[in-house]
């Protein structure tokens, strides 16, 4: 009989106008890897915050064995052995690895850096990872930072380790390392609560998986006894097949050609893309895909290389030039680069056009309102009004606002950088539909994505990058996930 280490019972948490957690009960066993699955807004993160003591539930009980609490604070949670690794790491960047590992531990009045380093070294040794305890955290890669976070939890003798989307910033091989480490922790009896969007991962490592939807507990399943389809159905509460709609257009003339582009770590990258085509760009995080997009768009400086748009060589040194030549970018970091969160939906949609459409500096407010209305309807953007601040919209709707802004500027070569990241399954489908609709209208799409499935599903052709180098081009007939992953990890 497995021992239950943590139980949450009948947790209710409401925010003004929203029930974030609605009568949620889950039990976690000692030494299991327990995955939490659900769309954005399903309540996973809120539940984690209840467990870590970051927020107080309105009702319900949190029980660590026999100790029951109606509310926690971070200190009590920690005393009970809970350690949380959030997506945004909570490390002090300016301090050393060793200092971070033992941050918050009583050190006495005088700190012995040497002793700290030795102890940190031992923790890393036990984890079989190679990190210099005296290195400054700022200089570490995201993967190493995460390892430092894990080491921190280990040094605190954490009994329950909560990991929020831990694989998001990692490359494929780094994910393997992480899996190895959490496997070892599990063997030592640590309970791991693993939150992820990536269903494949859950099958790799988890023992059980709890599905949440709309702030409610749906079910807890033994991972071995379920399958991807069942999990997706439980997540969305209905039968749903991701599918990529029919194309009605055959790619024709080359509209964009880049020749030997170098800069920001990218070396000599050349490719071309046709009208009506979706060109996928595959590669691991750090392979230089986003940099390539930004160079083409003129958002970041290049060292050398040429860009030809519709057969004419163009010098694109700033985004306004790119837009002028019909190139649009839907950036990876939607909230910080794609829109002005505190401004209205209408203002955001007008962002790329109000200068051009102004007459003697007077903006065409009426025209922009009409444009915004048009896209609201066309893209089915769910917002109470045009004056709503974009920050109050959901991720999928924010993305549609960003897309509307880009299209309003009459762009016909669209670079989508991770267009579906952090967007729930239903909105993802809408984004795919929109993309296909756009190419059917004769637009051209370059799509960067880390999700192999959508990349293979929607693209006509792929190019693969690895560490800033062009690894090859893959035509649709040769689409094969394993082959692409091999190229992306630098193997020929």
């Amino acid at each position, binding site marked *: 009989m497995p021992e239950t280490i943590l139980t949450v019972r009948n947790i209710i948490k409401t925010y003004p106008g929203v029930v974030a957690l609605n009568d949620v009960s889950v039990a976690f066993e000692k030494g299991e890897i327990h995955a939490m699955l659900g769309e954005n*807004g399903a309540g996973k993160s809120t539940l984690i915050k209840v467990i870590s003591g970051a927020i107080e539930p309105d009702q319900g009980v949190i029980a660590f064995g026999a100790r029951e609490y109606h509310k926690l604070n971070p200190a009590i949670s920690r005393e009970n052995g809970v350690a949380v690794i959030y997506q945004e790491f909570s490390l002090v960047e300016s301090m050393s690895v060793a200092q971070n590992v033992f941050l918050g531990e009583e050190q006495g009045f005088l700190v012995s850096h040497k002793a700290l380093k030795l102890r940190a070294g031992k923790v890393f040794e036990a984890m079989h990872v190679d990190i210099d305890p005296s290195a400054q955290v700022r200089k570490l890669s995201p993967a190493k930072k995460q390892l430092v976070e894990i080491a921190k939890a280990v040094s605190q003798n954490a009994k329950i380790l909560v990991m929020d989307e831990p694989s998001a910033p990692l490359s494929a091989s780094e994910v393997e390392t992480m899996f190895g480490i959490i496997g070892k922790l599990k063997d030592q009896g640590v309970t791991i609560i693993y939150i992820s969007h990536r269903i494949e991962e859950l099958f790799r490592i988890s023992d059980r998986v709890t599905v949440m939807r709309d702030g409610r507990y749906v079910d807890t399943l033994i991972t071995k006894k379920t399958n991807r389809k069942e999990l997706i159905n439980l997540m969305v509460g209905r039968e749903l097949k991701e599918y990529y709609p029919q194309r009605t257009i055959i790619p024709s003339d080359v509209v964009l050609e880049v020749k030997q582009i170098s800069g920001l770590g990218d070396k000599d990258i050349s490719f071309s893309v046709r009208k009506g085509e979706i060109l996928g760009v595959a590669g691991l995080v750090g392979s230089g895909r986003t940099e390539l997009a930004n160079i083409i768009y003129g958002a970041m400086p290049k060292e050398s290389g040429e860009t030809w748009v519709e057969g004419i060589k163009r010098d694109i040194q700033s985004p306004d030039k790119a837009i002028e030549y019909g190139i649009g970018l839907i950036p990876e970091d939607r909230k910080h680069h794609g829109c002005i969160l505190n401004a209205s939906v209408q203002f955001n949609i007008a962002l790329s056009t*109000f200068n051009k459409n102004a007459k003697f500096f007077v903006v065409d407010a009426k025209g922009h309102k009409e444009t915004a209305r048009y896209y609201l309807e066309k893209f089915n953007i769910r917002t*109470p009004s045009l004056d709503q601040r974009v*920050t109050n919209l959901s991720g999928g709707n924010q993305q549609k606002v960003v897309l509307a802004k880009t299209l309003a500027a009459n762009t016909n070569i669209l670079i989508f950088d991770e267009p579906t990241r952090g967007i729930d399954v239903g909105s993802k489908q809408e984004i795919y539909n929109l993309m296909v609709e756009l190419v059917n209208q004769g637009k051209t799409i370059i799509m960067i994505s880390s999700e192999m499935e959508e990349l293979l599903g929607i693209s006509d052709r792929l190019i693969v990058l690895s560490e800033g180098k062009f690894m090859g081009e893959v035509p649709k007939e040769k689409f094969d996930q394993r082959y692409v992953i091999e190229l992306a990890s630098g193997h020929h």
Partner: protein
Amino acid sequence: MDKMKKLPKINLGGLKKYTVMFILVILMVLFSFSSPYFLTVRNLTNIITQNTYFIILAIGLSFVMIGGGIDLSVGWQMSLVGVVTAMMMVVYHLPVWLAVLIGILLGTLLGLFNGLIVTNIKVFPLIVTIATSTVFQGLSYIVSKANTFRGYPEEFLQLAKGKFLGVTFDVWLTILVVLLASFVYYKTSYGWNVLALGGNEEAARLAGIKTKAIKISVYTVCGFFTAIATMVMISKANTTNSMFGPGSEFTALTAAIVGGISFMGGEGNMLGLVAGVFILAVLGNGMQLAGWGTYAQYIVKGLILLGAVTFDEYQKTARRKAHKATTDQPTDKH
């Protein structure tokens, strides 16, 4: 969609606009009880005419602030522009229009100087403008040789004395500036560029807005309005020296923040800003009539600035929290 509609509408901007007006009215009522002299035409006229230049100055500053920056050098800009303009009239006997033109040109250049530095060395504008402020201070004393200049030509004095329809020219000028600034923010592409810059510089740049040029321009526009404010100030005083101006930056800054110009950029309205100036003015005037000393007023002003910044920050946090609540729930369901 249904859930979205049920959400409380978060529109603190509008609330704030009315709060500022409300506070102004409350203050006036309070002070009218404490002193019978407060609610006289003469006193109210005084309050208005003594503050016209603060309004113009705060409007100049608002361009920088709404654009997401700050300019603490406007006080010493006024000092330098003031002594130069005065010397052009009193020492070099240039025609008034030319002296004023030189003064305004100088102010604009000082603003441009700030803008170029802020955009080229990427340091906090707070620090940059404290530094340039010290430079302007030195220049002002070198130019004026610590002299006081008075006895301006009658034409120049007309700016503060002359009347049209019973109202002095500087009040008309201020109304004009307020209307102009409102028009610029609501109706012109330039105003929208400034709002976009302050709202999110990188998103604005990626949307094709020439953020660097706009950033330089807001400091330049600020310098231009600062120079105009200087003209009103020295015309009203009929004298100037290098001590005229410094300190105004804090009054203008406080008024702007009290009036709802966000310290973080991206929002604000001109009417709120005017109300902000008058809240400070009414407080000062009321406290004076109530017999509080100047020093006590400094304390109150400082506390108001702190209070306004706290309120601004509180609103942002409240909005972030509300935002968290909305994104933490399923709005995206069909």
